[in-house]
């Protein structure tokens, strides 16, 4: 079973992660994202509510998505990240680039 759900509606793709965003998931998720970008998505929202771990491969995927959307004026948003992941992305200077927001308390 894929550990993510992708929806597409009105130029917006949304990706709900059902677990960690790490090297093990990246190939399958990349394939899914290619399809939604091919449909014409201009913006992508990644919901990390259920994600406890993000590694450098996962970060690479998020950056690749942002790089793909930038030429058409689109953006990536990464939402509901845990405090650990927020600090990690902050330390890697990626919170602005990826429009990262934390979980509501």
């Amino acid at each position, binding site marked *: 079973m894929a550990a993510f759900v992708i929806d597409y509606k009105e130029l917006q793709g949304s990706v709900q992660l059902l677990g960690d965003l*790490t*090297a*093990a998931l990246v190939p399958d998720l990349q394939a899914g994202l290619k399809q939604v970008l091919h449909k014409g998505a201009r913006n992508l929202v990644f919901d990390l509510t259920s994600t*406890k*771990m993000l*590694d*450098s*491969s996962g*970060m*690479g*995927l998020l*950056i*690749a998505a942002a*790089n793909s959307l930038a030429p058409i004026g689109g953006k990536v948003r990464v939402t509901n990240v845990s405090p*650990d992941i927020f*600090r*990690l992305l*902050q*330390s*890697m*200077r*990626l919170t602005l*680039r990826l429009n990262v927001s934390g979980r509501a308390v």
Partner: protein
Amino acid sequence: MSPSGEHAAVSFEQKIPSCADDAESLCLIVRGVLQTNGLSPYSFPIELLARECLANAVNHGNGNDPAKSIVLQLRAGRARIRLQVTDEGAGFDWQKAMQKTSSTRKTSGRGLQLYTLYAARIRFNRCGNRITLWFDKKKRTGNGD
């Protein structure tokens, strides 16, 4: 106490074939070891360091050759946690690699940056096929809190 200062209250070692699936399984085992031994507050950084070390060992060190092995050792004491990963590759010029930085547009090359972010001390053996990382429990994350 060991020369590096950590009491071995927790000691774990596992050898795996050099393949991504085995590395992923080992990462989840490391998470379990940390959580069942009262080390949950350090679970995120230590598991992340293990993931990056194992990914480098599988992909770069052993060149995705499943005939080669990787050994991970984890030792935790009162003040520090030590993680060591050894592969069977020829090693690499770690001094040169550690000087590289990654822009916010680059999609790869952050593994070594993460070592310096979370580890209090990093040591490679001479040829670069063994890395030892020390994590200071008082410094929970790489940004000082």
